């Protein structure tokens, strides 16, 4: 497989995810529901974008379309510069397994597999030889600080550890795009923050992430927050100045 984002263009020039005028309508006629309406969104490699909005605003639809699990009614989706429209089924499935990682609210770890086996699973499913897949799985566990739990089963792990393993599975190998839907929904606020810290660290290592959440505290970990309402992007934060601006020694605020 050619490297994602390859084909001559430099990596920084190609967005990990690009949505161009993406609309999605479910059903037809008067009962039709428009979930997304002309959404433009570009996420660079290394960038973490949070999508916020009330329930029913189209957040989850945006994520399933970005992950090629659904097709838009109109508009274009490009993952690492590759257009999903017209891509053969097999190639698309391969892209989903190799380039895109998913983190779910309820972890979705397989109970009969160890942490290492869970982390290596997407690569094994993709036909990567087992020793190579396991090595990559271990490396992913290592990057999330849970290498010591490699041989443990999910029910032996704490909630926070399980989510770390789930993130390891999402970043294993050479993933370029992480898609996360309320990735810390089941965790307490300290552990939820920890999950966002880990996702942000993964982005600092070069992966791009789109995180859907209704929680402002969690969204605030992102480099950019976009607001969705009735299927439209209604606002985006501008790159905030560094935290230094909050602390001005010698001056009373």
């Amino acid at each position: 497989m050619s490297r994602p984002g390859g084909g001559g263009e430099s990596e920084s020039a190609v967005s990990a995810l690009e949505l161009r005028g993406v609309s999605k309508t479910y059903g037809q006629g008067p009962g039709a529901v428009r979930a997304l309406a002309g959404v433009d969104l570009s996420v660079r490699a290394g960038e973490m974008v949070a999508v916020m909005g009330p329930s029913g605003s189209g957040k989850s639809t945006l994520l399933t379309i970005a992950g090629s699990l659904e097709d838009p009614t109109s508009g274009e989706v490009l993952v690492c510069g590759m257009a999903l429209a017209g891509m053969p089924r097999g190639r698309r499935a391969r892209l989903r397994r190799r380039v895109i990682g998913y983190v779910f609210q309820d972890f979705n770890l397989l109970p009969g597999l160890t942490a290492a086996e869970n982390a290596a699973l997407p690569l094994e499913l993709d036909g990567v030889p087992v020793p190579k897949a396991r090595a990559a799985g271990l490396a992913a566990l290592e990057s999330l600080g849970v290498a010591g739990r490699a041989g443990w089963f999910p029910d032996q792990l704490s909630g926070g550890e399980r989510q770390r393993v789930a993130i390891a599975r999402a970043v294993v190998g050479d993933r370029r795009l992480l898609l996360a839907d309320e990735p810390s929904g089941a965790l307490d606020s300290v552990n939820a923050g920890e999950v966002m810290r880990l996702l942000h660290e993964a982005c600092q290592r070069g992966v791009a992430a789109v995180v859907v959440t209704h929680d402002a505290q969690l969204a605030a970990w992102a480099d950019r927050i976009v607001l969705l309402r009735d299927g439209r992007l209604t606002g985006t934060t501008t790159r905030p100045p560094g935290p230094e601006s909050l602390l001005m020694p010698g001056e009373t605020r």
Partner: protein
Amino acid sequence: MSVPHVLLALLSEGPKYGLQLREEFEAGTGEVWPLNVGQVYKTLGRLERDGLAESDGTGQDGPQKRYRITRRGEEALAAWLRTPPDLTSPPRDELVMKVLVAARVPDADAHEVIQAHRLYLLELMQQWTRLKEGEARDDLSLALVVDAEIFRLDAVIRWLDAADVRLARAAAAPPRPSPAAAPVPQLRRLGARR
């Protein structure tokens, strides 16, 4: 105001000089609330006057003077720690006022006003979160202050979300007969206390 009691708390660890107190105050509050040295000496003077702290008594105010907490100071500190801050009447919040005004002024788009504030607050929250990610990892005081600020901003954002929904519903619903007069004077009275 909490500065005198924080100084008393620092003095309860042992006798200290003014400059040292200033440094420890700032470090102990995550360096989020700077304190100028003049304020330190003024506060120490007042603590001494009230018998809550005493100095070495070399006469002159200034860096040479070392302060210690008195028995009464210790009692005052213990009492302060357990006294809840006055949260009984809602503060006259500028943002709440802006949204109330936006809801009434015919030309103002309340939704747009709310959205602008929401984005600004999210950006602020991102900055605090960067602190949490960086410096606050090794600084417990700073981590506590940062959490407090993030929770506060989060509450304001949630209020904006709720206000947004409430205003949208009110705009969609047919106008209702004006409510009984009682709740309005009640609200006014609460506001007038501050």
